[in-house]
């Protein structure tokens, strides 16, 4: 499965090793790991809870992976996203892309994260010394996703 939602942590090294096992045609592996920070918007964050929409999340991520594979000549893609309670330093998300060359692998990896940020139904709730708050969507994330030309489905 190229897409996994889970509460438990992940081991990026083991995931990458599994993705490229017996694949001598792979010449480049691009990866991204998003982790939980101890502050956001100038306020300390002690804990966060990630909620998602089971079913739609997997479908949205699979669509994003399919879109990346249609745009760039890459081989395998893996997306692992955690849900539930996370603390600063904890890992949140892993994206791995393998390909023959680095350029396409880098681009596909960045595209997947930009689209995940704006299209996959996850929501973060932070605990701060002032109480809990839902994280607001950032316009900079929308702008990052809009750098890429829209998929055919959006143009229609």
């Amino acid at each position, binding site marked *: 499965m190229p897409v996994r939602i889970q509460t438990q942590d992940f081991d990026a090294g083991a995931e990458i090793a599994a993705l490229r096992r017996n694949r001598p045609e792979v010449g480049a592996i691009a990866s991204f790991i*998003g982790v939980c920070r101890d502050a956001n918007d100038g306020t300390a964050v002690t804990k966060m809870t*990630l*909620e*998602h*929409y089971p*079913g*739609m999340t997997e*479908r*949205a991520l699979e669509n994003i992976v399919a879109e990346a594979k249609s745009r760039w000549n890459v081989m395998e893609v893996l997306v692992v*996203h955690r849900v539930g309670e996370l603390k600063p330093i904890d890992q*949140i*998300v892993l994206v791995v892309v393998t390909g023959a060359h680095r350029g396409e692998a880098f681009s596909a990896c960045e595209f997947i*994260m930009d689209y*995940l*940020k*704006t*299209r*996959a*139904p*996850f*929501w*973060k*709730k932070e605990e701060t010394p002032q109480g809990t708050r*839902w*994280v*607001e*969507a*950032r316009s900079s994330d929308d702008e990052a996703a809009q750098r890429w030309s829209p998929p055919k489905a959006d143009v229609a």
Partner: protein
Amino acid sequence: MKLKVLYFAALSERLGTRGEDLDVPPAVTTVAGLRTLLMGRGGAWESALAQGKALRVAVNQEIALPATPVKSGDEVAFFPPVTGG
């Protein structure tokens, strides 16, 4: 017409529910119509679903627009802009 309606994150907290099975009148044929029907409950429903609020809607787990049709058996979800990653 029977719909399964879901609410997520800050919106579900504001409304005090995560979802419900709804029997809606046949006049409701689109996402916009359903939103107006729910706003008619007043109180938190009227304010949280008001036009101009940053709100996303999915029909059968695909992102939808106000004009997207809804039909019996559909799963319709309302939620705030997403913040994963």
